[in-house]
């Protein structure tokens, strides 16, 4: 990104200049002129706009050119702009440039400790699946359940919280429709998904469901907006501010092009029964590593 390079350039120039000037007589009470403060504020605002622009540009490129932008590009761009902004805040607002270099050293040591912590933890939890695939995943995605949720209801073991929440929501929808009370928006969207699942599984759709959904096109739009639903409260409930990038670099879980949420993924992986433990699968065929 051109602007990222420019930002780094100015920053490098800035620090170069600072080193020459600041280190000399650090103990003097430095008063930062208002002009510098205002320029720093403007710079911060532009970078904030930049980072939002970059995020949205990414979506636009991804959808127009059907590009597959991998995850780390998003992370790299966002974090480098955030890093530049925080360096500017630290250097000028917190007067690290004009200050005793000892304080800058404290800041850099803290960041160093943070990177050690992050780096080694990611090495461990990221590289778990190297020897055997089954070591990387969770036994039951979303947790093994068996705990009492907020309402005091006991989640059966081997059922994840998310899956249990979905079953509870389905029951509630069924009950509310039978009572005839109108559904809140997110339950309406859930109803659309239920109907889709029934259609996909070629099961008969209950008349009450179809009747309820008849007069409500916006539910369909929300449910099928790139497999997402936006019910955040910011006024325009259904404006799809942005959608998921077409490509999630990790192919394993399979959500690639925007389409109906496949029934399989919706109901979560069926918990491997006690007998069908993964052991019987991949365990036996490893080449003899000498």
């Amino acid at each position, binding site marked *: 990104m051109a602007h990222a390079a420019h930002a780094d350039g100015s920053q490098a120039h800035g620090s170069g200049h600072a080193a020459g000037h600041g280190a000399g007589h650090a103990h003097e009470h430095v008063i930062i002129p208002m002009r510098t403060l205002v320029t720093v504020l403007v710079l911060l605002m532009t970078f904030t706009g930049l980072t939002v622009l970059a995020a949205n540009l990414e979506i636009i490129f991804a959808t127009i050119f059907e590009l597959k932008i991998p995850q780390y590009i998003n992370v790299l761009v966002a974090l480098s702009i955030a890093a530049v902004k925080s360096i500017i805040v630290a250097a000028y607002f917190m007067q690290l440039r004009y200050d005793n270099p000892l304080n800058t050293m404290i800041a850099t040591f803290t960041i160093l400790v943070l990177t050690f912590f992050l780096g080694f933890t990611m090495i461990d939890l990221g590289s*778990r699946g190297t*020897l*055997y695939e*089954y*070591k990387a*995943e*969770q*036994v*039951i995605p979303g*947790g*093994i359940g*068996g705990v009492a949720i907020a309402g005091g209801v*006991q989640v*059966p*073991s*081997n059922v994840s919280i998310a899956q249990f929440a979905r079953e509870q929501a389905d029951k509630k929808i069924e009950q509310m429709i039978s009572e005839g009370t109108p559904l809140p928006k997110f339950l309406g969207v859930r109803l659309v998904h239920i109907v889709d699942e029934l259609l996909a599984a070629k099961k008969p759709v209950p008349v009450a469901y179809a009747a309820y959904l008849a007069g409500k096109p916006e539910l369909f739009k929300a449910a099928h907006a790139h497999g997402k639903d936006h019910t955040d409260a910011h006024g325009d409930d259904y404006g799809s501010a942005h959608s998921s990038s077409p490509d999630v670099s990790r192919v394993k879980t399979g959500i690639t092009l925007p389409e109906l949420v496949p029934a399989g993924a919706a109901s979560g992986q069926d918990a491997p*029964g*006690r*007998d069908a*433990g*993964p*052991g*019987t699968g991949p*365990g*036996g*065929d*490893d*080449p*003899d*590593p000498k």
Partner: protein
Amino acid sequence: MNEWLKGILLKPGNSDLALGDWNVDGLFMFITWLCIGSFIFVMVPMFWWAFRYRRARGAGHMAAVRTPNHNTVLEVTWVVVPLLFMVVVFFWGFKGYMRGQIAKGNAEVINLEAYKWAWEPLYRNGASSGQQVYMDDRRTPGENGALVGKRGNNLFPVIAVPEKTPVKFIMKSRDVMHSFYIPDMRIKMDIFPNRYTSLTFVPQDAGGDLGNNDQAGAVTVTPGEIPGRDHYVFCAEYCGISHSEMAAVMRVMTPSNFDKALETWGDLYKGKNFAEVGAIVHARKCATCHSVDGSKNTGPTWKDAWGKMTPMAVGGSVMYDENYTREAILNPAARLHQGYPNQMPSFAGQLSDNEILGVIAYIRQLSGKTTDADKVPFPSK
């Protein structure tokens, strides 16, 4: 000398990790001699100089001559030399470690499920551990004359492993963290509820078809048991009240014995009636917490429990009958027995309906109220 010291410091190993190449015992002894050597290198000068240059009584004299206060060559050597030893120890340790992680192609895969305070292996033909033994041999007659092990009446499952064939355990926990530790095989691996972990080794010696048990000396072979050489299995990650009782016996069997064991354990319930099946299920899954002779344990005893109004933790009482027992197995927290911790995991999905009926029959038999339904032969698979 090395063998003598190894005999003191280590129990005899019985896996390729302990006896094969890059093994643990060899590295253990290498580090031991390294430590003894450097300990002497440090302690001899300390004692000698502390004695030689001690200050005579009362004389405040200074050091006789001014000695140099740093010697770069010396200081560099005593950094580089330990570093070289460290590199050797690291590499040796790494090679030994990887032998316990990567299983060979023809490994015998055993799924192991750990739950609060017991082990449950699952073999390739669906068989679980069909044999239980007392851990300590000095058994004293209990109140009712039956032999009672030192640890109360606990029975420990036998985990059979074939001799000389690589074994791979794929492990998962049902509730909290545990750790599968076999000291004689020199390996241990934590077990998590949310992810699978695995460990592998090659058991070396089953002690012939009759299985000499001089090693562990802890378990006597009773008639009908399939013999083999026994080793302790401990839980090494703290997991609660009976963490120290969460043990098992790993029995290394000759391949023929191993196949015979798998075959008999595969269909344990052949030719048994419901009450006997209930006894087997109790021995395998419930013995850790429920005693059958009335003695107090983590869970309520099953002796003389049937048909009584049992007090509930939430107050009131409930008749100890079929549906109370069924509910206690599937959803134990629902109507908790008074005075007992809410520690029982749910066995939903672990026991088939017939097995639950077997348990009910066994409890009735323990309370002397057996009905003829309990004597119906168990429908085999």
